[in-house]
């Protein structure tokens, strides 16, 4: 019978219906000013906890959860985003989220909190380049001026017709942003960005 183990890594990208890379730019431009790529299978844990439990979890996981809503903290390539007064999204390298999940599940704190693996429910896009803020401002009503949306800022909000989490990982000339959306909206978000990015030149590629 044909039931030999499939490779764990063979999971599909959120864009399996699309052929990447896609480049869209006006002829007058030499190169695209925005780069977009999916970070496939980035580990994502949704954590619901409040009060002192946050400290406890920070200790256990190594993530800093002493955050206000709409803040991001980064450490060694891992990020914690505070989505609300008792809600966090932890971003971890692929695979490590299950270890984290197991660890939390085996601790007695699990009775007071909720941990949900949402790695496949959400899709993470990395956006960088000179015009990223311009691009986002076409569909996002948040003030993205560097003065008010700098490094370690994040928001959960609407981007055109999709709900997204936008986080600023790096604020400099080429800016690096994370945009996280529900997987089933990923294709819409991609289409929207490519269309909106045309003016500035945009390349959507697989994650390198």
């Amino acid at each position: 019978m044909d039931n030999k183990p499939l490779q764990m890594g063979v999971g599909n990208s959120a864009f399996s219906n699309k052929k990447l890379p896609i480049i869209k730019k006006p002829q007058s431009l030499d190169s695209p000013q925005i780069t977009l790529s999916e970070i496939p299978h980035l580990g994502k844990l949704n954590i619901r906890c409040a009060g002192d439990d946050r400290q406890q979890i920070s200790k256990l996981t190594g993530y800093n959860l002493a955050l206000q809503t709409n803040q991001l903290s980064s450490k060694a390539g891992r990020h914690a985003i505070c989505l609300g007064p008792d809600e966090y999204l932890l971003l971890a390298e692929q695979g490590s989220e299950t270890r984290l999940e197991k660890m939390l599940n085996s601790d007695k704190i699990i009775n007071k909190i909720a941990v949900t693996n949402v790695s496949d429910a959400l899709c993470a896009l990395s956006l960088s380049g000179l015009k990223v803020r311009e691009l986002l401002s076409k569909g996002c009503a948040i003030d993205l001026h560097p003065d008010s949306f700098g490094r370690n800022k994040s928001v959960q909000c609407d981007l055109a017709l999709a709900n997204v989490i936008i986080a600023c990982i790096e604020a400099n000339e080429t800016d690096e942003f994370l945009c996280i959306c529900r997987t089933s909206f990923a294709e819409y978000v991609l289409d929207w960005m490519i269309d909106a990015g045309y003016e500035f030149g945009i390349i959507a590629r697989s994650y390198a």
Partner: protein
Amino acid sequence: MKQKQPHRLPANSQCITREKTVQFTFDGKKYIGYEGDSLASALLANGVSLVGRSFKYHRPRGILSCGSEEPNALIRVIRASSAEPNLRATQIEIYDGLIAESQNRFPNLKLDFLSINSLFSSLFPAGFYYKTFMWPASLWMFYEKIIRRAAGLGKVSTTDKDTDRYEHKYAHCDVLVVGAGVAGLQAAYIAATSGARVIIADENRQFGGWLLTDNDFNINNKPALIWANNIINKLHLMPNVTCLVRTTIFANMDDNFIVMAERVTEHLSQPDAHLPKQRLWKLRTAKTILATGAIERPLTFSGNDLPGIMLAAAIRSYIHRYDVLPGTRAIIFTNNDDAYYTALAIHQAGGFIRCIVDLRDNPKSFIITQIRNLGIDIRFGHAVIAAHGVRHIASVNIAKYDSKAAQPISNIDHIDCNLLAMSGGLNPVVHLHSQRKGNLIWDERTACYRPENKSDDWVAIGAANGTFQLARILSEATKIATSIISKLAKNNQRLEMQQTPEMPVSDEAKQNWAPLPVWSIESAQSYISDKTAFVDFQNDSTVADIKLAVREGYHSVEHVKRYTTTGMATDQGKTSNINAIGILANTLNKSITQTGTTTFRLPYTPTSLGAIAGRGIGSLFDPIRTTRMHSWHHSNDAKFEHVGQWMRAWYYPREGESFQQTINREVHATRHYAGLLDASTLGKIDVKGPDAAEFLNRVYTNNFATLPIGKCRYGLMLKEDGMVFDDGVTTRLAEDHFYMTTTSGGAAGVLAWLEELLQTEWSDLNVYLTSVTEQWSVASLSGPNAKAILKASMSEDTDITDDFPFMTMKDSFIAGLPVRIFRISFTGEMSFELNVPARYGLALWSHLMRVGKSFNLTAYGTEAMHVLRAEKGFIIVGQETDGTVTPYDLDMSWIVSKKKADFIGKRALARASMNEPHRKQLVGLITKDPDMVIPEGAHAVIDPNKELPMAMLGHVTSSYYSPNLKHSIAMGLLKDGLNRKGQTVFFPMLDGQAPIEAKIVDPIFFDKQGDRLRG
């Protein structure tokens, strides 16, 4: 090619580039203008003064103004890709190859057949259509056709698709300055020096406002324009300032939400393909400064609509901005000083002032003296009683005029001319102020409405605030900008006000800004002359119309507006409303304040629908959501169905198959072998926390507290009104952890509702909800071979197929993929719902299809699913229910707990009407003719031969052909249905076919005992 532009003056203005000639056509004729010209200035330069026909009477009309207030010169512009009607010639920038056309005329402007309307005008005064066309009643639709033919102005092309791009952009700033005249520039500059984020926008192609026209004054001892250019340059260089030209702020809404339209490429001959035609800015600003200037009022007298009669300041603009002198022998008709500057400008440009007709009796000012010293004939206390001409003004009647008594008091003097400059005073542009319901104050001295600056959000300055003197505008702008910044700086460390902001000084001589308002010039025979004294030029409403409205009892200013249509044209009465109010006030013998104004509404000027729609059309109109197996369905020729935003595989036709054949095949295969359905779109919610069971007990009608770990239970959810809201299977994964499924379409609503209950009603419950709909891909494997296929797809050590009772759940692996398997069934067959992390959805699906091949596994879509569940009498929320159906109506009282003290909907179910037998109840229907499928939605009647209207019992909610039963089956909601089992009913058809006869039966058609599904 060089062509004479007879009305062009020697080069002088900085607004046009004389080196760059531009060729364009108007009504098929070629003309030459210069870069920087508006279509209006270029036409005037070429001596074209007749540019359109009026709406109702088709009277010849020329250019009245030089800005966005233009009521007459509405033009259709034709591009390779499109034609756009109703553009204002005063705002169209000419470019090489521009093709412009006049509108509302046939066959051409000069010889418009419908101008015959003008002759019969006495038959159609305001509101005439309310009084006639009523007999015979049956002919109205015919009359209406004729009336409609005369409707509208421009024509729109309907064949070509709009290929232009329209962008949207959100923006934020500390201070928005609307208008870049002297007031706006100074305010923006002061604000910007504090470091504030400033946006300054003007609808013109250039900053400067009226300074571009009026260069008679100095600021800081230099010509005002030099000061302006200096500020403009500085603003452009400041990183915290955004300067926008060709940008109209058209909406001022709650909490300083401002919408503006930027025309990005419309003025270009060959626009860059990547740039949008227009950009819609959606702006949130802390403060708004309205420096929107003022609009001049026409004067109202008989014949005042002839081409060649223009607003006085507009004429000055054409001379100074565009080097165009619209006429050579001019009459100036005014009630204030400003028009004297126009006289001066015409005189300096080489025109001849025939005479200045001033309504005021004996005004004195610097400029009047200056003009008098030029030897120009000035007649005080006079009025233009009438203007004459065929397609252009040729002469006027002038008489001494008693404005109190409203009548001429001397003999008529007849003077020839080819230009008439009129000025009735200025109206501050208060639109944006008024859109936010800002109050207006009638200022008797300047005879205009000015805004009452009361709000904390926005403030008007300059001419927009009724401040017309340059020196005072500058100090007002400085003062206001400073105070706004100091207010903002309290909560914003970024901002720091300079100690003493520069205060420019102006040498503008004192003008007499107090006009003498005379709202209409009456003749000795006003009942005749009023009919040609136009108030609203575009809609052809006259002084006579307003007086008629009053005579007929339409006294409210809003009634007059609607009865006469004054102010309802595309210019929204920018030049006519105040005159109309004045005339109305006079006629009613009331003050202007008592008369009031009509309501100001957005947009400030008409705004392209394309720009408002933006890119949110076509494929971006609404997101489409697909499952992770989508590519398989697609490459296997699935037809799709939209379920909310989801796209689901509907059925998989094979070559040569009809719809029904496909469905029959899929249904048959699933019943006899096995079928696989992509069920990934089902809503899934993780319910966690110590109170999870308690919570579910309160939201479902049945009991969940008792559900053992590892077991699944079907639940029904009601809203507080007792009506069925959603259903689904929920599984207990751990003591404090449940996995809830919902309908695909209801997922978001259910989550939101549960979250609402937790936060607002039962905040004491410790429960967390997380949507995991997309975390899991779900393949539903069903049919007699399901178990064997599952077994075959697993390796020996992961095989869990033995001892797997109905309504339980197990974790395992399939081909190395972690799967969560639920033994539940929506088909009535032995069935497994396989959940894998979504990234493996496609892998799982493909694996199962491969393994299942030898077991005759068939992929089936949502249609077959519907048939399969209908054979079993399973309901679908949204199909068997519509928000008016209780569990009792569905004959599902078994699922409504009698023991629980409370749950959502319990009390409502106890209301008087809820248990009455004549409610509509769910029943099965079997047609007499087994091959006849009743259309869904058909209504049951007892006697189809009765006369209409017929008493109906209810409708068919689901109806299919069942290939297993070889019979059509249906379900329906019928009045008193449960008591009617066994009765015969009829379903009348829409297409005239004979009614379908059916028997009311139990809705479970197949495997009543459920042996198959238990296995």
